């Protein structure tokens, strides 16, 4: 899932300083699961903004609503009337949600209430960790299901650097060395030969380095053959 965390209230206050009417839009998908921007968080941020603006002597009219998926336009149509009534929209969606709102409602001032962090999973209640860097060319089949692009601090492809110590990364002892994990896994599976081959330099074009990415599936498109823009 996409993991995000809420911006500090002071920053949210500053972002919405000039607005009298604020619409807070939560999202019912990833950010609900990671307790950053679901209905519950939207209600808390709304209450906080109401209270703090009242204390500041400029009470705001704050309304909150949560859509099922902020990253798809069709779910955004149902809040059209509320969108029109607000001075600014505070999205509690991920970066995709914020942009989907801004694209669907070009005249609206859409502000981010979260910092989108990474694609990851919960390790335990209250702890999330990154697992995928969306590089566009998955090599997990060669690395025992452990991604060195997302989990090695230097994105190495041919084994650990000299800073791997007692299973930990040189950057921070709280980070597991991805290559120690890969080594242990492949050793346990009797597949260490996979580490003996030299992995050539990665083609980063499928990653962000090739420019903003897009997938076109002609088999699914309705307007087959038309050029896709946007």
């Amino acid at each position, binding site marked *: 899932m996409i993991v995000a965390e809420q911006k500090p209230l002071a920053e949210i206050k500053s972002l919405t300083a000039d607005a009298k009417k604020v619409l807070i839009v939560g999202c019912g998908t990833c950010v609900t699961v990671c307790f950053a921007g679901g209905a519950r968080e939207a209600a808390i941020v709304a209450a906080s903004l109401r209270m703090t603006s009242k204390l500041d002597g400029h009470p705001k009219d704050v309304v909150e609503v949560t859509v099922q998926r902020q990253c798809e336009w069709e779910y955004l149509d149902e809040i059209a009337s509320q969108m029109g009534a607000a001075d600014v929209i505070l999205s509690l969606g991920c970066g995709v949600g914020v942009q989907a709102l801004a694209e669907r409602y070009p005249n609206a001032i859409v502000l981010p209430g979260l910092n989108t962090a990474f694609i990851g999973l919960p390790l335990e209640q209250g702890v999330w960790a990154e697992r995928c860097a969306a590089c566009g060319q998955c090599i997990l089949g060669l690395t025992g299901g452990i991604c060195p692009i997302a989990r090695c601090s230097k*994105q190495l492809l041919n084994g650990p650097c000299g*800073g791997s110590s007692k299973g930990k990364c040189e950057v921070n002892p709280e980070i597991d060395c991805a290559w120690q994990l890969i080594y*242990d896994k492949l050793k346990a599976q009797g597949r260490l030969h996979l580490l003996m081959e030299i992995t050539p330099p990665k083609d*980063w074009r499928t990653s962000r380095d090739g420019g903003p990415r897009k997938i076109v599936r002609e088999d699914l498109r309705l307007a087959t053959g038309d050029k896709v823009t946007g």
Partner: protein
Amino acid sequence: MSGLNGYKSGSNLEKVLHAGHFAVTAELGPPKNADVEVIRKKAALLKGVVEAANITDNQTAIVRMSSIGGGALALREGLEPVMQMTCRDRNRLGMQSDLLGAYALGLRNVLCLTGDHQTFGNHPQSKNVHDMDSIQLVQMVVGLRDKNCFQCGEEIKGVNPRFFVGAAENPFGDPFEFRPLRLGKKAKAGADFIQTQMIYNVPKFREFMKRVVDLGVHKQAYILAGVGPLKTPGAAKYMRDQVPGMDVPDEIVERMEAAGKGIEDKKAKAAAYREEGIKICIELIRQMREIEGVAGVHIMAIEWEEAVKPILEGAGLLPRPVVEPVVSA
């Protein structure tokens, strides 16, 4: 090969190793400014004392004069440089472009490194690159020389850079049993020489080298064992406790502590520590010479280039051999 008499690069380091001498390299840390004098002074301390000196590339991720700039200056002073190149700050375009420039300036040795993570240095907010890793970098530099082509496969039209290519290895990094295999990968990638991380735990290094020799890697690349003189017991403790991947046994720390015992005068105490540090380093070099597969030593006297000469004198490694180019019949 024309003009190189069969050598890959024709560097002094290559010639000395090729002739079968026990080679010596050292380290020259460029300044955190643009002062030519710093390089001049340090080069004067190392010239004629070592085969070549590594010019570090923003070591510990702190901005310093570039290894190419520092290397070209060292060369002007008569000291052969080993240009260090990390994968942290440049992508394959930048690295190849710098390799062409460095070769044009007369640099002939390059050491391919991953690079310390930028969070350790003075610009922790920066973005790192790591377009390639050190093994891929070795392959690329070897390709420029032996395949006469850029990493993308495009032919180099005209003069191609012909470097003596090095790589590093930390025998004490984890997983320990993978380290000799990783060294083998570097040799397979085409590394001509290897310089290791600083060694203080000799028995563990022996174990590592035994495995390296069993794999035959010492026949594919010259292995230079890393050593370094300790300045103070504090430095020894810091390396033991704080530097990831360093292995400093307690007895080394205790020896350093004992050296200053009973000495009240601060200057005399510091001198006693330094003397002991140099003594330990000499002993380490003597032990390294006895280990099968070790072709030389790499002395890392960090910001203490003055120590290199007395260390080599003590180890009986001066004067350095002079290898004339092989004259073809």
